[in-house]
């Protein structure tokens, strides 16, 4: 990597949280949120960190944004060590945390953003012009003079998104920026993220997400992270190419069935997930080759289940994650009716 210019570099970055005895409930009193994470994000990249909830994505961003000290390891942002000189790092960064409705409720949208621009020393007239542009982008132009306690959570989130881009920071951290937003808004914000980085090739974005398609659609490179460990890091296309020797199927069978033990016993399956959805069971399979499908179908039929659909599909980052980790990205979301994912 000699000769390249990195906006973000981490080396064996580790963060361990101590859990209070009364909160540990018989489990370990230490939680490893980041486990020797080593990353190098080049200047001008839109770099994604993809992982399920609790993978360590937010911890990584907090450390890079100087909000949290690492336990061990080093991190540099814009060439500056985040522990040794956090004040200097802050002059180069911006940060947006998704799913939050933060902001001063008694101020208007415009005032909230203007106030923030002043901390960065922006000229007031420039700030107002930039605010106007960004409010157009996020669809809040008609709410500029509205006090934010009148805004919905989604609108506040859009305002916070605009705040992140306000100063055109050298390195921008976007922590799940579209989480909880409606589909149309999320799409608009994603296209602005791509547009912004294309217009500012000297800037860098580090984006965390647990939405596979977001990482796939937006990012130049993606690091897949789980339980604090960086498992793989490459372009989405290259990561998916890693599954080239394997085939991916999606099956739907009738009823809400626990097919785990049955699939466990079938040969030729590299990885699988199964989840109950809307009265049927959906199974994603990564097979060593297509021939392995036959015994799977026989086993399903033998269990009395009726096959509703069978689809051979191109590998996605979800499959890459499944291949690497043995469970799906959404398995620990807590909101679905997913059955436990099994690793083979």
């Amino acid at each position, binding site marked *: 990597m000699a000769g390249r210019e990195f906006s973000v570099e981490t080396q064996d970055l580790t963060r361990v*949280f101590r859990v209070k005895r009364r909160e540990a409930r018989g489990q370990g009193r230490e939680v490893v949120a980041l486990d020797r994470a080593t990353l190098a994000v080049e200047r001008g990249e839109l770099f994604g960190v993809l992982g399920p909830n609790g993978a360590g994505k937010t911890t990584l961003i*907090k450390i890079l*944004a*100087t*909000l*949290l*000290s690492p336990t061990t390891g080093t991190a540099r942002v814009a060439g500056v060590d985040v522990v040794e000189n956090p*004040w*200097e790092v*802050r*002059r180069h*960064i*911006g*940060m947006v*945390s998704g799913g*939050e*409705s*933060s*902001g*001063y*409720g*008694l*101020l208007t949208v415009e*005032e909230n953003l203007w*106030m*923030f621009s*002043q*901390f*960065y*020393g922006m000229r007031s007239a420039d700030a107002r012009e930039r605010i106007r542009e960004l409010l157009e982008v996020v669809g809040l132009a008609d709410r500029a003079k509205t006090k934010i306690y009148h805004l919905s959570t989604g609108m506040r989130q859009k305002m916070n998104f605009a*705040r992140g881009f306000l100063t055109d920071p050298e390195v921008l951290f976007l922590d799940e920026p579209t989480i909880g937003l409606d589909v149309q808004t999320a799409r608009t914000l994603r296209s602005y993220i791509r547009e912004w980085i294309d217009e500012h090739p000297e800037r860098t974005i580090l984006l965390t997400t647990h939405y596979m398609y977001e990482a796939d659609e937006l990012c130049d490179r993606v690091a897949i992270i789980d339980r604090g460990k960086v498992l793989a890091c490459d372009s989405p296309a290259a990561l998916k190419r890693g599954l080239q020797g394997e085939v991916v199927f999606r099956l739907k069978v009738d009823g809400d069935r626990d097919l785990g033990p049955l699939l466990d016993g079938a040969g030729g399956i590299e990885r699988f997930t199964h989840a109950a959805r809307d009265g049927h069971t959906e199974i994603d399979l990564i097979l060593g080759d297509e021939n392995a499908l036959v015994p799977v179908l026989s086993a399903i039929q033998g269990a009395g289940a009726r096959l509703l659909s069978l689809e051979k599909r191109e590998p996605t980052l979800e499959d890459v994650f499944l291949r690497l980790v043995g469970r799906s990205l959404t398995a620990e979301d807590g909101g679905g009716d997913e059955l436990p994912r099994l690793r083979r």
Partner: protein
Amino acid sequence: MTARVRGGESWRSLRVGAWLGWQIESNWTDLFLFAVYSVVKPVAGALILVFMYLVVARGGLENPLFPYIFVGNAFYIYVGAVLMGISWVVIDDREHYGMLKYMYAAPLNIYTYLIGRGVAQTAIATVATTITLLFGVGVLGIHIPPGRVDWGLLAGTFVLGLAALAFLGLLLGGATLLTARHNYFIGQGVAGALYLLSGVVFPLDVLPRGLQWVGKGLPVTYWLEALRRAVLGDGGNEALRSLSTGTVVLVLALSTGVLAVASIVFFRWAERVAHRRGLLDMQTMH
């Protein structure tokens, strides 16, 4: 990084913090109601004190103790306002507005930002104190002839005392970084202790000897003593009568200096701990 850049950031942080503080303090209602509230609150506070004095202490308004109590109580408005105004920002920004982490990720000077946030409270306290004093002179007949007020002493000690309160607020702010919802009680506790121990309404002389010594170690005690000497011509505390006014001011300046160093050292330590333990964005009450 140059001192000029740091200075610019500190000034911006102070200026924007003060602007934000004023917006938050004054924007909760319309201007008329805010003005009425700003007048009625201190007058009501003064009346409560007067009735307590008349009923509980059975004293007369012409008793020399009354101006002592009244002036001490009027200036004590600053103690609660500045102390809580600065320290409460930490918990308000962190838990109510969810903005503390964004402040910490921005290039601002957190110390001047917090002090800036306290400026609005100070301005409101100034209005309240002025109204209280005018009410005392105009309605209650407290004798404060402007020609006999030592304006130089008043201005000098006033500024020194505000600085002491600001640093005390920072100290509490540091504690708030590390604590959850208890800050309110800590702030109230400290303000209450200062009310008792700094000779706000009780002269130091009536306190037990041990508490007198505690009171003599507090800058607020010397601040109020100097302010009373400037306004009334007499501090009213027998325990401090042997000290010249110059000595009182000197002790105030020295104790403010010590408090400044202690509060900055403590706040920095609290910041390091908060960074280490991940407390800058904890949510415990909202």
